């Protein structure tokens, strides 16, 4: 057994949420650089350049990339040979509380959906725990803004639905989001499972690093191409780059079902993976 103190977890989470809010990852920056070259619209090009400049300022000055420093969504993978000293949920939330205060990050979480009273520390996080074999402890952290979250959708298709019908639904979702969710977008798409499983997969898909399944990669590329035909463009001001990437995760499902969930992320896709 490997013992891990809850305090160590809190410290790591505190640092990680700050880093994620201050720095865009290199892969995303490269995508934005590529988008500048691809974009035909002058207004669109300028938006993309501003975003790159914005990321540089945030990184240098240790300030948030976006004022919406999100609600924190964390996928935890915990090995069966790990023993946590203390409560894992509390340790994670304590880390967020400290990190959001130290990093001058906005507190955007309310305790109750009706009375809307701010918890003042950006907790609680949305936490998912997965058990794995071994002695590793991994945190995959997503800083999720509400502008893009609000534009996300799910549809329960007939099992006989075609890929074209699924694409139409995704395009319609992007059209409805239009300029509102800060394009160019990263699209997380969950296909299969059940109602809630598809939604969860769509969120997890935002963190997906690569696609192993070649048929899925082809489908992702096809969807990306279709989204970029909408003309919405950077900032929604018109252009060729409406999405930067499409990421699909799929799951087995019932003979009568074909759930499809679309989780939109803005261009400031802030995430970080840490292992303890």
């Amino acid at each position, binding site marked *: 057994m490997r013992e891990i103190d809850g305090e160590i977890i809190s410290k790591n989470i505190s640092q990680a949420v700050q880093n994620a809010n201050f720095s865009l990852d290199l892969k995303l920056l490269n995508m934005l650089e590529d988008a500048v070259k691809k974009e035909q619209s002058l207004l669109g090009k300028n*938006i993309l350049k501003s975003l790159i400049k914005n990321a540089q300022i945030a990184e240098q000055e240790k300030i948030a990339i976006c004022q919406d*420093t999100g609600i924190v969504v964390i996928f935890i993978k915990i090995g069966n040979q790990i023993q946590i000293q203390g409560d894992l949920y509390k340790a994670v939330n304590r880390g967020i509380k400290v990190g959001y205060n130290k990093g001058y990050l906005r507190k955007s979480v309310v305790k109750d959906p009706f009375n809307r009273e701010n918890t003042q520390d950006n907790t609680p996080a949305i936490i998912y725990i997965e058990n794995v074999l071994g002695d590793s402890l991994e945190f995959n952290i997503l800083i999720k803004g509400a*502008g893009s979250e609000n534009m996300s959708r799910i549809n329960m298709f007939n099992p006989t639905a075609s890929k074209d019908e699924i694409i139409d639904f995704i395009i319609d979702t992007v059209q409805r989001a239009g*300029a509102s*969710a800060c394009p160019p977008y990263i699209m997380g798409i969950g296909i299969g499972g059940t109602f809630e499983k598809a939604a969860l997969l769509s969120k997890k898909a935002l963190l997906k690093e690569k696609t192993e399944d070649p048929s899925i990669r082809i489908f992702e590329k096809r969807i990306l191409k279709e989204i970029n035909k909408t*003309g919405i463009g950077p900032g929604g*001001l*018109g252009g060729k780059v409406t999405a930067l990437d499409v990421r699909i995760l799929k799951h087995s499902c019932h003979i009568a079902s074909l759930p499809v969930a679309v989780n939109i992320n803005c261009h400031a896709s802030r995430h970080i993976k840490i292992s303890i």
Partner: protein
Amino acid sequence: MNLETPLTENKINKLKAGDKIYLSGYLYTARDQAHKKLCELIENNEELPINIENAIIYYTGPAPARPGRVIGPCGPTTSYRMDKYTPALLKMGLKAMIGKGQRSKRIVDLIKENKAVYLAATGGAAALLSKRIIDSKVVAYPKLDTEAIRLLKVSDFPLVVINDIYGNDLYDMGKNKYSEISG
């Protein structure tokens, strides 16, 4: 072009969807909860904590300022959520709104009718935009924290005209220009 507040009718008349402007002067911040409170006061014929006439409202909830800074990162939030409160504010003389994302047809029509303007700041460019804010003070609803109403002084704040007094909508114009979807 460079523009200074207040945005008088003469200045607004010259603005066209797609124009890039650099705004200097004063604007108020207000988002969901502040709008709700303002409109409750309007409904009850009570006095507002700020003067809406000829004012500009920026839809934003800034992040906290690091020590020595005027304000933290401060980019636009999504505007459509304010659509249900906007008619009452336009009626009281609101002249400009700054946010991101498309407004409802009703608001676009009211912008034209009231000779107002809707401007977009770059969503997600909050660190960059905060550099153009030279003063900030909370003027109403301090308990709302980030959602409090602030009076900001801005210098060369970069904006794009989305909806002008002629009924144009840059979001539609831009999309139509670059769309490759037939029909």
